[in-house]
């Protein structure tokens, strides 16, 4: 069971790093590597998208390997993260639209918020059931 878990975790780790790398290439490549070549940019974006889908499938495999308590913990954390992201995301967008914040709302901030919220709710839920 543990060996299989390690295998799934390693697989997810590899796809995650690969996705981050292809995202970086698709983001900075057009400006710094291939001078806005349309075909290369399209190829980089499609590669990143396919990589993202494979990362999700690897995550699903790991999730399906969890036992019932782990699934409950992850599902509760995901539900809280989804709810908070919608609420906070819309508030953040409103703050931008009404110019209450002196800068443009960046999607990166929301992605960071999702990651932090998921980690925090996961830690809290793990503590609750230990």
């Amino acid at each position, binding site marked *: *069971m543990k060996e299989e878990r390690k295998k799934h975790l390693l697989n997810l780790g590899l796809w995650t790093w690969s996705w981050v790398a292809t995202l970086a290439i698709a983001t900075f490549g057009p400006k710094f590597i291939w001078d806005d070549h349309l075909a290369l940019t399209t190829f980089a974006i499609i590669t990143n998208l396919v990589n993202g889908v494979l990362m999700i499938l690897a995550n699903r495999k790991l999730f399906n390997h969890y*036992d*019932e*308590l*782990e699934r*409950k913990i992850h599902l509760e954390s995901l539900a809280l993260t989804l709810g908070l992201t919608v609420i906070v995301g819309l508030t953040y967008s409103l703050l931008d639209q009404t110019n209450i914040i002196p800068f443009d709302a960046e999607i990166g901030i929301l992605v960071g918020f999702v990651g932090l919220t998921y980690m925090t709710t996961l830690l809290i839920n793990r503590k*609750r*059931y*230990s």
Partner: protein
Amino acid sequence: MKNKVRELRKQKGLTQEQLAEIIGVSRQTINAIEKEKFDPSLPTAFKMAKLFEMSIENFFLFDETK
């Protein structure tokens, strides 16, 4: 839900890790069941019943007031 899993596990001379391995769940799950923080699924309860050689209602005590 109240249960006698810890007591029965000790009677069988098993550690949480060993019981978890036999049932096919993590040690944390066994710990959460024993501390009555988590109620297991039916398949897990049936696996335990088979191991402890008794029916589920003999070691999981349902309290209607909760």
